[in-house]
């Protein structure tokens, strides 16, 4: 991030490993304090991106999370190479992040409601969805079905992972097959959309929740900026593709600030919980 310095200060007063400037209000934020505030600007409440592990921490009841399918890693279905082979790119991303792929899944409780939780991480290859993301979400949905838990997915993704080609595309159908079964069984699915969520992730599970919430200011669009303006060449209105725009257009239930997410999701899950227990109404 390029730092624009407040008037009268010199750059070296704010070394970037210690400070971050808020792109929204320009405030210089002390990194540790920013992290303590869940990566939300203490001045203007701008929501910075958040890693999957930190996200899980803030979403679940303390200590309730148990990771599943942690060992899954990507194959190389196409034998794909651009400037370097796909497996090398994955390995580099794994080394850098300490994670195996762009998603972490597991069981937890949220407001005492048993859930299966899947959280994407944009830092891992742009949160791109390949077979690992597809498999982990599908297993998550299947587990939710088997154990009659709710499913919560937090999306943050540039879309399908190009290096896995149509196999990445097929993950959309694979995941949605599992979501269809979950829906049939009347188990709740809450989709949480965070900055940024685009492409094949938005065009599949992110857009299908019984409840869909987004974080303030999140970029949410089907086409990447490049594609939309490049292909069609039209000027876009301000705020286009931001969460607030999507809310107005009818695609979000709510925009929920990060500190309220756990409580809000818990409220919905508690409200939905009775359904699967009332046999008079089984269809």
């Amino acid at each position, binding site marked *: 991030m390029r730092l624009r310095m407040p008037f009268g200060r010199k750059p070296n007063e704010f070394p970037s490993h210690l400070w971050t400037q808020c792109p929204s209000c320009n405030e210089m934020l002390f990194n540790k304090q920013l992290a303590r505030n869940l990566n939300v600007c203490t001045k203007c409440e701008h929501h910075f991106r958040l890693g999957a592990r930190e996200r899980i921490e803030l979403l679940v009841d303390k200590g309730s999370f148990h990771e599943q399918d942690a060992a899954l890693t990507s194959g190389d279905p196409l034998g794909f190479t651009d*400037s370097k082979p796909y497996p090398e790119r994955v390995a580099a991303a794994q080394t850098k992040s300490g994670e195996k792929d762009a998603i972490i899944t597991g069981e937890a409780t949220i407001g005492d409601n048993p859930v299966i939780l899947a959280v994407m991480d944009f830092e891992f290859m742009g949160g791109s969805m390949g077979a690992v993301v597809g498999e982990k979400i599908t297993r998550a949905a299947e587990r939710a079905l088997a154990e009659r838990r709710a499913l919560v997915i937090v999306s943050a993704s540039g879309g399908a992972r190009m290096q896995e080609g149509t196999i990445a595309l097929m993950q959309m159908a694979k995941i949605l097959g599992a979501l269809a079964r979950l829906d049939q069984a009347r188990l709740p699915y809450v989709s949480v959309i965070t900055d940024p969520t685009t492409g094949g992730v938005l065009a599949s599970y992110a857009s299908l929740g019984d409840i869909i919430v987004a974080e303030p200011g999140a970029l949410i669009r089907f086409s990447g900026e490049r594609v939309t303006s490049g292909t069609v060449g039209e000027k876009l209105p301000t705020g286009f593709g931001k969460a607030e725009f999507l809310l107005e257009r009818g695609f979000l239930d709510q925009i929920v600030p990060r500190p309220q997410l756990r409580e809000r999701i818990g409220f919905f899950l508690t409200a939905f919980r009775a359904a699967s227990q009332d046999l008079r109404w089984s269809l």
Partner: protein
Amino acid sequence: MLDRITGTKRTVEGNGHLPVDANLITEPAQLVSRVSAWEAVQAARNIQRPHTLDVIGRVFDRFNELHGDRGFRDDPAIVGGIADLDGRPVVIVGEQKGASTEENIARNFGMPHPEGYRKAMRLYRLAEKFHLPLITFIDTPGAYPGPEGEERGQAEAIAQSILLMARLQTPIIVVILGEGGSGGALALGVGDVVLALQNAIYSVISPEGCAAILWRSPAEAERAAKAMRLSGPDLLELGVVDALIPEPPGGAHTDHAATAAAIRTALAAQLAKLERVPAADLMSARYERFRAFGALEEPGVTAPPPAPDSWWRRIVKRAGS
């Protein structure tokens, strides 16, 4: 129903092919020569290639087009309706490119708006309600990426369409005619059998888009096309399509009638098999078809042994094929 019903190397159990029916190509080795990925891209985009309405007119009888999404607009980039295939009524939905510049403008170059996918969904539900087999034709550069599409929920419409096809309780055959562009194609692409014309392509992003992002230059599209493995034989090897429908020697655009005849033969043969499969088995098989995609490594986890009586065996037994 090809692979999944009869069992092939692309199913979980990995056994060999049963005899090929309807002259379909189920092994790349059956092809005399293999065009390059870029040649396939050119062929799939050829404006003289047979498009959906042209194919419908030649393959089916008494096509009655049905219009509209019941909410916003009748999208000309998606057509659909009811027709007879060998005297058996079916529901048809397909993406429609133009055969001329004028028609392409009217059809938005085959790029549907959200209301197009919503029209498709309406027709999917109609097929389900009256238990009519659904046949879809894919031919699109992708869903329209412009602002109107975003405003009316392009992503939501595609997601709902995929979800609905995944759960739709009626047999579905998908045919990729030309370009299968990403989610805009997959919205019509979740079927029990997925066929493609020999020179059709199917990809997660256009070669140009891929090149622009990964090679930082659209000029590298040819290289990207090859790397993406988007041509018919590639898709067959990946299991993304179940079989290729052979095109006339000069390509589909040289002989629409012969192309349509091959499509008709393929559809009739597949439909005859699908119709004997009970609903529950069909739904399981469709689930497993897409469930199986993914090259994965999982250290420390041994794959579970195959179930003694798996979904496709049950179907083979009941279908008696």
